């Protein structure tokens, strides 16, 4: 019922077009309340994490739970960074993420460019292949990939986590780039070609500069993917000094499983950078979805 009524307001759209009536006021009040309740519920895990992380160790276990810490203690964060090398893991994660990001943006945009703007007979075939790859469950290639990287003696190095990004950067990103490139008028290329520019020059000087929004979108999604990755780093990295934040956090948890204040402080260390990134890049998220046409239009 709420869904249908909510759409009335969506449908009515422009504010103030219809006269204010008591019913309408009540309706908007109800909408606001629902939104606030939903927001509280959905931000609860992160808020609860932060709140717990600031409670003195041992004091997190109280009944009923205190929603906010009575005294704010930063000690947990200090304990966490002193007991495990979180700083090093942070650097490792940043390094892997940055290196993969560069490869993804470069090679995925190249493939997207060929599929959107270059004329060649087999284009439809390759595009279909890219789209089908998007539907492929990654687990199918997990074991052979592991065996390949083992053969290459890449175990316990960052290569298995970085190198694949330099070879196409994932079908989804290729598709994102293609969709965006395809929306730029083709006349631009033709004009440039008549002036003697070749495909490489057009890509570098014309298409890429016009496509910064999609570069931003792909960068953000790729950043999140690598920052949050768990299974692959766990399979490939074995020594503590090569850990990423995600597996480091899991290792930390192995030692402090029941110290929730510490665990939440350690978790917060992995979460906060992501939240900061999100605040600065919010608009690219929804924009990214719009350009892909994933929403169906």
């Amino acid at each position: 019922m709420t869904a249908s009524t909510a759409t009335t307001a969506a449908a009515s759209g422009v504010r103030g077009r219809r006269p204010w009536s008591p019913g309408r006021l009540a309706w908007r009040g109800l909408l606001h309340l629902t939104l606030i309740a939903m927001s509280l519920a959905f931000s609860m895990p992160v808020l609860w994490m932060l709140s717990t992380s600031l409670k003195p160790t041992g004091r997190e276990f109280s009944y009923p739970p205190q929603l906010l810490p009575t005294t704010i203690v930063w000690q947990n964060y200090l304990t966490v960074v002193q007991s495990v090398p979180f700083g090093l893991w942070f650097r490792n994660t940043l390094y892997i993420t940055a290196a993969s990001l560069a490869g993804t943006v470069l090679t995925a945009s190249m493939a997207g460019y060929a599929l959107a703007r270059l004329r060649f007979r087999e284009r439809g075939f390759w595009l279909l292949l890219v789209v089908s790859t998007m539907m492929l469950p990654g687990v199918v290639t997990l074991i052979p990939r592991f065996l390949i990287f083992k053969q290459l003696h890449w175990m316990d190095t960052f290569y298995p986590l970085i190198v694949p990004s330099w070879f196409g950067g994932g079908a989804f990103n290729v598709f994102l780039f293609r969709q965006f490139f395809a929306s730029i008028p083709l006349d631009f290329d033709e004009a440039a070609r008549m002036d003697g520019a070749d495909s490489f020059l057009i890509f570098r000087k014309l298409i890429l500069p016009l496509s910064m929004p999609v570069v931003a979108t792909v960068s953000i999604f790729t950043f999140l993917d690598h920052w949050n990755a768990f299974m692959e780093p766990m399979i490939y990295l074995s020594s503590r000094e090569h850990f990423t934040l995600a597996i480091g956090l899991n290792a930390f948890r192995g030692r402090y499983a029941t110290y929730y204040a510490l665990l939440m402080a350690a978790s917060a260390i992995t979460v906060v950078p992501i939240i900061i990134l999100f605040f600065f890049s919010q608009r690219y998220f929804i924009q990214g979805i719009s350009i892909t046409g994933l929403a169906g239009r």
Partner: protein
Amino acid sequence: MAGLRWRRLRRVATVTSEATARTVTARSARRRGLLWREHVDAYVFLAPWIMGFVAWTVGPMLASGLLAFMDYEILLPPVWSGLNNLSTMAKDPLFLTSLGNTAYYTFIAVPLQVAVALFAAILLNQKLRGVSVHRTAFYLPALTPAVANALVWLWIFNPQFGLANAGLRLLGLPALKWFMSPELAKPSMIIMSLWGTGGEMLIFLAGLQGIPELYYEAARVDGARTREMVRHITIPLLSPSIFFNTVVGIIGSFQVFTTAFIATGGGPQNATLFYVLYLFRNGFQYFKMGYASALAWVLFAITLAFTLLQFRLGRFWVYYEAEAK
């Protein structure tokens, strides 16, 4: 589409040649040269992706297809074992448990996720003050790294001091054991997954914002009621997004791993032993690479079957505007 591009190219070639006043043969030669250049360029640009596709998708898939018929325990060279892995699988109770758990999880979680995301998207599409703050709040759990997320939910679902039970007690309801109970472990994970639907919500939001206001205006002029507008405008025009979220959601849920690995380790009593978790154990804890590959291919076949089935069914309910025009 392609025809249009060809025609444009011809036009360009003509213009160029007229400008330089070349002969007809030179013109067609130049056109062919141009096309050939573009053809070569296309493959240069595609080269990294194609190499990656061969090295990290097709190659590994073929390799795991072969490994599925082998015994390979890493230390010893692989031995051909025919259909052994498949017959082992048929008799393996944990394989069946993990398949059942995954199906249970997927077929309950995905419809709920789509419903929650759709409801949230409609709410978050309202033109109200502060709506962008609400969008951020809703999206927050989807941003949280899986390990941290699993840990915080483990804490929320803590039977003694967790927030969930405190809430239940406040309502006068009995406390539950959540992840610790074989019956509730899967539902707990489904509940938890609903908090991660920010991505789906964004896709719906983008879809909603793409519906022209005009349609609603026209319907209102014709005296349509809210319910009718949702039924006949919003839902049909949003059906591609619903379809996409369902397909991708099912593929993703079949591969659920990290949450169970961190929060429950597959327990209690294998209640959350999901398919990929079992595959992971076989591959990387028991080092049965052959058996794990066979498991991977079975999962691939199941996923493919479901995806194709959905595309088939989608013809009946997914509405693409482009087709109608």
